[in-house]
């Protein structure tokens, strides 16, 4: 690992000041599960590393306020998985978070870091897209809120500008009853990077939202407003046609080690059907309760 100077701001203001003073060769350290590898392998050679974990405003990392939960930049995957409200209202996010790496990784890796890292295979991106998460960004000009769909740009790229820090994710419990589920494909049952990630949500108006990743430069959100996917009795051909449209932009890399483009495309359909099926089931449960 190349030498760098280590900064550990204790407030958000201080962090913004440190960033402004550090120029462009700066890296943000939250969980570090990607950054430390990149620095050891010298893919990234920052002159300054800013550790976010002592910023007072980030604690507690997970706060519910009415129907909105705010997850700060230090909220780990384990905290997401363990939160009762998230499991109740955003079960697909819990399902995605619980398959990110091993226990040790999840204890360290942060939800926001998973998004800021910009991996097309990020497990939590599809559910966050489906749930319309908002990314809260702080910078010299103050705070701005960005829809997750606009925040995610491409491999390794986000909408963050120099001098800015993503400080939180906000999720609001949908006003309409919603069922949702997350699915992924891997090479083994144990810890693995996914070759396909997919989240589906069905609401009681018959609108189905499908987000999927690992099959192109970024995870995408697509919406079926025809009601076909939400309808358990829709003919198979009709459903296939809708999926065809939803997955039209999938462009899995031929270079990937993890799975072939053909397999990934086929699995999108399989996982799509499974996730939508489970989402419908959950919607029925939600309705049953309410």
């Amino acid at each position, binding site marked *: *690992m190349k*030498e*760098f100077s*280590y900064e550990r701001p204790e407030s958000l203001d201080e962090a913004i000041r440190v960033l402004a003073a550090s120029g462009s060769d700066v890296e943000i350290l939250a969980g570090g599960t990607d950054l430390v*590898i990149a620095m050891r392998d010298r893919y990234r050679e920052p002159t300054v590393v800013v550790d976010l974990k002592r910023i007072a405003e980030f604690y507690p990392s997970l706060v519910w306020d009415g129907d909105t939960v705010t997850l700060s930049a230090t909220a780990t995957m384990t905290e997401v998985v363990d939160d009762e409200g998230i499991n109740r209202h955003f079960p697909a996010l819990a399902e995605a978070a619980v398959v990110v790496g*091993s*226990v040790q*990784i999840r*204890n360290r890796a942060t939800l926001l870091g998973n998004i800021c890292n910009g991996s097309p295979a990020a497990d939590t991106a599809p559910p966050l897209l489906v749930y319309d998460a908002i990314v809260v960004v702080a910078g010299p000009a103050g705070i701005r809120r960005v829809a997750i769909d606009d925040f995610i740009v491409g491999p390794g790229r986000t909408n963050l500008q120099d001098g800015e820090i993503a400080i939180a994710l906000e999720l609001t419990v949908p006003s309409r009853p919603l069922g949702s589920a997350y699915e992924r494909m891997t090479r083994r049952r144990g*810890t693995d990077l996914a070759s396909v990630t997919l989240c589906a949500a069905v609401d009681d108006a018959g609108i189905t939202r499908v987000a999927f990743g690992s099959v192109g430069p970024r995870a995408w959100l697509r919406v079926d407003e025809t009601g076909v996917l939400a309808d358990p009795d829709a003919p198979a051909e009709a459903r296939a046609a809708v999926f065809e449209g939803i997955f039209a932009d999938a462009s899995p890399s031929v270079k990937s080690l993890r799975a072939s483009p053909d397999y990934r495309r086929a699995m999108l359909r399989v996982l799509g059907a499974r996730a939508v099926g489970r989402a419908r089931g959950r919607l029925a449960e939600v309705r049953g309760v309410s």
Partner: protein
Amino acid sequence: MSETIHIETTINGRDRAFEVAANLTLLDVLRDQLGLTGSKECCVVGECGACTVIMDGIPMNSCLMLAVEIDGRDVITVEGLATDGHLNALQQAFLDLSAPQCGFCIPGQLMSAHALLQRNSDPTIDDVNEALGGNLCRCAGYLQITEAVMVAAKAGKE
């Protein structure tokens, strides 16, 4: 040499204060600076778990942490499990069930298992397999390891 930073930490119950270089991982510092070689280096990408330590009760891969990040924290390594030379129940179960073969992955397995049992004293076998899912073993095929964790959990209850 990189910037060095003064840190104060508790390692295996002992308060310690020392300087660390910013660009060293916790694993590097444990092994090379503190002589705590029980934590092992294998994949250094957080896949094998041989370097697992427990910080503030939570198991983590020490290869993916900067050493400076333990400033003000409480760290337990495999060397901290036994008390005055007496094996704890988990170590004893590992020994009794012949869980270690070559032994290289065992410190990490023990740390993951110890953290699990601290949090859940009555785990199912699925809980154990999940908790140890980030600790690769190439010798044992896992069964004697997970069995040992179950035996230790039972011993803890009695």
